[in-house]
């Protein structure tokens, strides 16, 4: 029996995990940025920044 092993099937699992983790990180980073921006905005506006 010399069929496909974990080097084949493992790739699909690992790729799915990678993509999922990436989007969780991206979503979290966007939330953190939005939070930081909303805290900074009143102070920045008073300085004339964007």
């Amino acid at each position, binding site marked *: *029996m*010399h*069929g*496909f092993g974990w*080097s084949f099937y493992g790739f699909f699992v*690992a790729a799915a995990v990678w993509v999922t983790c*990436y989007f969780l990180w991206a979503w979290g980073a966007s939330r953190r940025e939005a939070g930081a921006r909303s805290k900074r905005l009143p102070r920045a506006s008073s300085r004339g920044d964007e």
Partner: protein
Amino acid sequence: MSSDSAIFTIVVIAYILTVIGIGLWGYVHTETEEDFLVAGRTIGPWVGGAVLAATQISAGTFVGTLGRHYLTGVSWIWIWFGVWAGWLTSAIVVAPKLRRFGALTVADYVGKRFASERARTLAAALIIITYTIYLTAQFQAAGEISMAIFGIRPIYAMLALIGSTACYTLLGGVRSSSYVDFLQTMLMILGLLLGLPVVMQTVGGIRALGEYLGSIDPRITGWWFSWRDVAATSIAFGFTIAAAPYEMTRYYSMRDERTVRYAIGISIAMQAIIGSSVLILGLGMRGIFPVLPSADQASSVLASAVMTPLAGSLFLVGMISAIMSTVNSILIVTAGALSHDLYGRLVNPRATDRQLILVNRAGIVALGLVPVWFALQKFGDVQAIVVEQSKFIASFFFVPIVVGLMWRRGTREGAVTAMGGGFLACLVWTLTMQASFSRHGIDAVEVGVAASALLFVVVSLRTPPTPAENLAIFFEDAQTASGRGAAFGA
């Protein structure tokens, strides 16, 4: 003309007309240099993700990688994680700061970050030189495909490729290129997905295929390459992707940092679909045709002898799209370096937007024609040329860009030395020690990046810091930190 040829001709003509139509639409909407080089910074995450995938996926993937799976089996697939590690580095370190900076070219970043016109000029010149080599591989692949499938002389295929690609690139710049890239990525995925059921049906399913290939050579279904081979190649691709100018230029065209972050994720997902499909098709072709004259012919034979005429035509259009999208991205970045960074800064600093766009368009034609000559000489196979140029890009760009965005103490002298030294170290290792790579396991890219990093740190620490006003946009606390000397972190 046979019915198969007629179907292919119709599909290709429809494809080229659509591409040129999008180019004309982009031309109408392009007025300023910012429109031309960064699409007015209006690209969203889905189109942006497809753009990044289209620039990443090239002739090397459809011809070289599919052939590599055909010949060596499964284990090559794991190099994708090196590619995606490069994308992750880019998403965390490079993309947010570059997009916030909002320049037009990568050399713009180098010039601003290190407060040096010399560093900017060197970066622009190195981009033009190394990407000319990369273009050579794309033209060579187009020539080989046309010769293998249609018996057309490579020179005609190369001229048709440069003609059609330059047409939509110089008409609408990045705006039309982005929408064409989106179309091309969809065609690549469609072409590959259409091939999967045909191949699986022919070989009797994935389990039967695995057992058959394992009986030919167990390494095909297991590990043909050692983990060291896979890791070395992964690292090379990772370094390259993390600081690839033709990808970074596209970040500038997206709406904001958040858009870039999601676009990179969408691009990785698309690459996973494409990479998985290429793996299965390469393995399937080994099951159907165990002995082809050349592994690089696997994709052409798949399209012409295994798939139905319509599906095969779409697969071939996907292959052409992969080549065109990469050629297009390279022309954008090299012509931008020529017009914006060399002509606009050195030759005619008072150039108007109209003059810069004119020089850019002339550059697209000139820089597109030069590699045709090199491609006709056939200095190496397609995959080898792609790998070699990526090593050089990583060797001179990874440190000034990635480390330069993390370490505020990096100076212009450090950057110039790192770029020149990394390039030379990679070149010398390639010409001398690379031949015994499999014995000592050290690749030219690792030597190039290590030399570049060492020179960057040593020379930077011995030269005056970059002015705080140049660092402010890249390091939030640069104003207060610039006087502290060598501090790490943003």
